[in-house]
């Protein structure tokens, strides 16, 4: 398997606040990685570093072996930002129009969308099962539906890697299920490497191929074994975590491992 994402000794600070502390991470082509950790631990910052939106103060970020800042074909990176549905909800754009935006950067200035491009938009909407809503106003959809539209927007540029930042926040359990099914298909059938942020430790453990944990700006690579002692969890999370909260899922994981 080839490495698709590689972070080497990455450090990052906002002004003088250190947020990422010597991060090393390697993700192989085809993986589905869950990135977990409490609020404020630096997950979103790490994702923005990986997509090249933020520049590390030291260290290297490589995508397919190339420094993320030097990538010509930026369209290989798909990104669904945290709370992407906190945009102006009364914005008069149709679902189709919103999804088509994912193609604009790839097309470049002075180029209009062609018939083929609109077909690509339709296909992405079919993948996320939102094709029936393509002429609806984006603001008239539920949170889960909007999230699927934003995933479609990330898909139209035909990415090899898809970053999702807390895609399930604020959507109901049923929409969450649909979302995980879609992501599973994208990962297994479309061969897209997925890196998904969530702060829910348990919800994703049986959905992803690997989990990495963030805490206090550091990355912990061994939380996929789920054998933390309470003391270690306190260290990572900065506060005591109840291990017995999600009994059911916890058991599943233990059986699986």
């Amino acid at each position: 398997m080839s490495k698709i994402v590689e972070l080497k000794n990455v450090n990052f600070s906002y002004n003088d606040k250190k947020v990422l502390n010597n991060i090393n991470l390697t993700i192989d082509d085809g993986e589905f990685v869950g990135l977990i950790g409490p609020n404020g631990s630096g997950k979103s910052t790490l994702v923005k570093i990986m997509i090249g939106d933020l520049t590390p103060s030291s260290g290297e970020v490589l995508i397919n072996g190339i420094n993320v800042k030097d990538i010509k074909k930026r369209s290989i990176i798909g990104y669904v930002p945290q709370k992407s549905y906190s945009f102006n909800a009364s914005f008069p754009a149709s679902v189709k129009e919103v999804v088509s935006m994912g193609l604009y950067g790839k097309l470049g200035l002075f180029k209009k969308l062609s018939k083929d491009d609109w077909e690509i938009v339709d296909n992405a909407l079919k993948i996320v099962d939102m094709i029936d809503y393509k002429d609806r106003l984006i603001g008239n959809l539920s949170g889960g539906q909007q999230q699927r539209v934003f995933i479609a927007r990330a898909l139209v540029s035909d990415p090899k890697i898809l970053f999702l930042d807390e895609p399930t926040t604020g959507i109901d359990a049923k929409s969450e299920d649909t979302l995980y099914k879609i992501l599973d298909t994208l990962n297994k059938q479309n061969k897209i490497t997925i890196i998904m942020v969530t702060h829910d430790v348990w919800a994703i453990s049986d959905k992803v191929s690997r989990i990495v944990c963030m805490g206090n700006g550091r990355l912990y690579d061994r939380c996929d074994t789920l054998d933390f002692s309470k003391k270690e969890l306190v260290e990572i999370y900065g506060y005591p975590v109840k291990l017995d909260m999600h009994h059911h899922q916890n058991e599943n994981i233990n059986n699986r491992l």
Partner: protein
Amino acid sequence: MLNIFTYDFMIRAFLAGGFISVIAPLVGSFLVLRRLSQMGDTLSHVALAGVAAGFLIGINPTIGSIIFVILSSFGIERLRKSYFRYSEISIAVVMSAGMAIAVILLSLSSGSPANIMNYLFGSIISINNTDVLLSLILSIAVITVIYIFYKELLYITFDEEAALISGIPVNLVNIIFTMIVAITVAVSMRIVGALLVSALMVIPAAASLKIAKNFRQTIFYAILFSFISVFAGIILSFYLNLSPGGSIVIVSLIIMGLASIKKAGN
């Protein structure tokens, strides 16, 4: 009844009015959706200073106002960054600065007060062929630029950060858009007057928002409503001897009311 179309000055009014009825809401729709409705108002005050400067140094007032408005919009951007958390300060400060400079320049210039009244309240009768030609050329420029950068403008208006991440040259497009706004304000104030420029940029777009089902429709209805407002407003003002700028805005408000009722009825 007098036939409105037998007068050359009315023909000129319809021509110039027709041009601005397209560009004002075209640009205004983007401003409204970027929550910059106040921008047109501020810039038209600055444009007034440009008109005064034009009188003073003897250049075409429309050209003078375009230069002033472009300069001030970069001033707004600057102030907006230094007052990051109170960005509306920048708009208020620039509006005051524009008015202050306009008043001072006017007191210096010997130009007749009637002239400046034309720019404050708009005047159809005083439009000459040069004005018509200038507004035609500038309108074509505005429409062309928006056509060319339509998709980038849409994305930036919808979500500026996402647009930047996806590789859209946001700063470049923003600078170009600023200049387009400046031109639109300068051209429109000749017809509806500085005090009502922003009305024509904002009200048709606001009406359109009530019924549009996508972004393309938003722009289309805004232009349609504005077109109707300008033509009906000019005709009303001619026969009833009212202020044309005021009549245009009142018609646009009526349309906005109707659009709201239609929305409520749905």
